[in-house]
């Protein structure tokens, strides 16, 4: 095997793969470098270049200094909004999805496969089909332009994914285990707590990572149902680009983009394996 590594065809493979990998990394490298260049330096040269002086102050300005629309508090408030929407919605949709996934896969009840089938339709139904009804529901319940409204939306809509993930995972647990526990007198919650939950960490990690990434990155609902100070960070970034169109501050903007991307990038770095598992689990639905 060893001499094979030096064959010309092997070198060619490594060369091609490295080139493509470099192209894939290029956008990230460009933003990271730009986030450390001054606005003036970028304006004189181009977006692609090595920092002449390291402008760490871009991050401070992006975090709490520059102005989006009329407020000058950086993207900190919007990051906080995104966290306040993403964390509760991730927890709620994962917990409810785990219980419901257990109910449809192991507990079984009349109509379970029907309702499961309908719930998973949510994977396909375009968001656009739900925009107007959500608008009306949020307005009538007083949740329009609130973070609570976004938490409700993401929790209910996230169920389609979380129920699918958990159900597919739990079907591998033998039904006899549940049957035996029921004969011993264990009820729905006891079985969930004592048998199902201890077996669940692998799928819960996949679900949490998937939900967190998706809700954090979501844009359409954020921009439709919130305005101004209530917007999540994705919507705020678009507002920022529009606001600074006349006098671009690409250094600070790059820092803002990096900060907004950081939570999901970090999660990907730490739990990439689980993220990919979610990605492919959704594909074989």
């Amino acid at each position: 095997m060893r001499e094979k590594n030096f064959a010309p065809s092997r070198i060619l493979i490594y060369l091609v793969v490295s080139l493509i990998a470099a192209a894939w990394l290029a956008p990230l490298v460009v933003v990271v470098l730009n986030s450390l260049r001054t606005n003036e330096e970028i304006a004189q040269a181009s977006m692609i270049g090595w920092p002449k002086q390291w402008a760490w102050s871009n991050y401070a300005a992006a975090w709490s200094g520059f102005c989006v629309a009329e407020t000058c508090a950086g993207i900190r408030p919007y990051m906080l909004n995104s966290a306040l929407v993403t964390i509760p919605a991730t927890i709620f949709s994962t917990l409810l999805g785990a219980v419901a996934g257990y109910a449809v896969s192991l507990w079984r009840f009349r109509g379970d496969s029907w309702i499961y089938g309908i719930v998973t339709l949510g994977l396909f139904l375009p968001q656009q089909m739900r925009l107007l009804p959500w608008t009306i529901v949020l307005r009538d319940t007083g949740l329009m332009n609130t973070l609570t409204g976004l938490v409700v939306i993401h929790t209910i809509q996230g169920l389609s994914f979380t129920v699918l993930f958990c159900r597919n995972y739990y079907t591998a647990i033998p039904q006899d285990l549940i049957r035996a526990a029921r004969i011993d007198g264990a009820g729905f919650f006891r079985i969930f707590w004592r048998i199902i939950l201890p077996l669940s960490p692998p799928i819960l990690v996949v679900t949490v990572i998937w939900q967190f990434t998706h809700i954090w990155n979501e844009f359409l609902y954020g921009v439709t149902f919130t305005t101004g100070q209530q917007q999540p960070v994705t919507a705020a970034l678009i507002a920022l680009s529009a606001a600074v169109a006349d006098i671009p501050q690409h250094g600070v903007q790059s820092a803002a983009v990096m900060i907004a991307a950081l939570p999901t990038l970090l999660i990907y770095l730490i739990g990439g394996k689980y993220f990919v598992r979610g990605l492919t689990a959704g594909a074989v639905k």
Partner: protein
Amino acid sequence: MTIAIPTRPGRSAVSDVVRRLPEYLTIWVPLLLSAAHLIAFSLWTIWISFTPSTLVPVSGWVGLRNYSSVAASRNWQIALDNLLLFGIAFVLLSLATGLILAILLDQRIRGENLLRSIFLYPLAVSFVVTGTVWSWLLNPGLGVQKLVRDLGWTSFRFDWLIDRDMAIWTIVIAAIWQSSGFAMALFLAGLRSVDADLIKAAQIDGAGPIRMYRRVILPTLWPITITVIVIQLQFAISTFDLVRALTNGGPGIATQLPALVVYDLMFQRSLLGRGAAAAVLMLLILLAVLLPYAGWRYVQRRRAIHA
């Protein structure tokens, strides 16, 4: 199959239901909320699409008038043309890129995990972020064109972002970059699950690496290929964030896509009836892709059971 558990003697059916109420609520409330919102909201949007609603939803019946005015609008026609071009170009190119990457990574190379992470990381980042970054890179006054000109090649042109005819290709580029990794991951899983005996048999027959891929390995990948095509098409049909951040539909309306038309009609022009009609049309386009796929999956599953 439901397991019948006999109720304990001495308890009436009513008290049994009361006792098990928390269980019923926990099972049914989330599932019903999810299922009911999907069905009710879809029907609601379909209903609005047949009403003369503008700023607020109103009752009334205008038949297919909203549909005909959406279909006749220039905005929608351009969006459909773009979707056709974007859908085909993006799906074919990301399929090809994903397959090439998967085959390269399958050559037992060092650093496979690192490389796989590199090709997949764009999927963890929001389209708003990547769209913004690509809008800088592709901006002729800021990005690649500026760089190459500064290096001395002053006649270099790469201004697709502001070119009406080419702007849609900037979205193709960004979308390929963002989601080829997904195709790669699925293809790689497929390549790894090819029957080892099959490969051994072909090796004994003296098949070289290229012949091996063409004749033995790739033919086993076609079910995965269809899945990838359908998922990527589904993504293409509902593309919104990426375009919003990259071109915002411009220059002019050159990169308009159905999802942007829906948003524009609903929330910028306050033509709810027409917006809903455009959303339903989007759903129909999606169904035109998904229903044949569902039928194919059904046949496959039947065959697997009977085989």
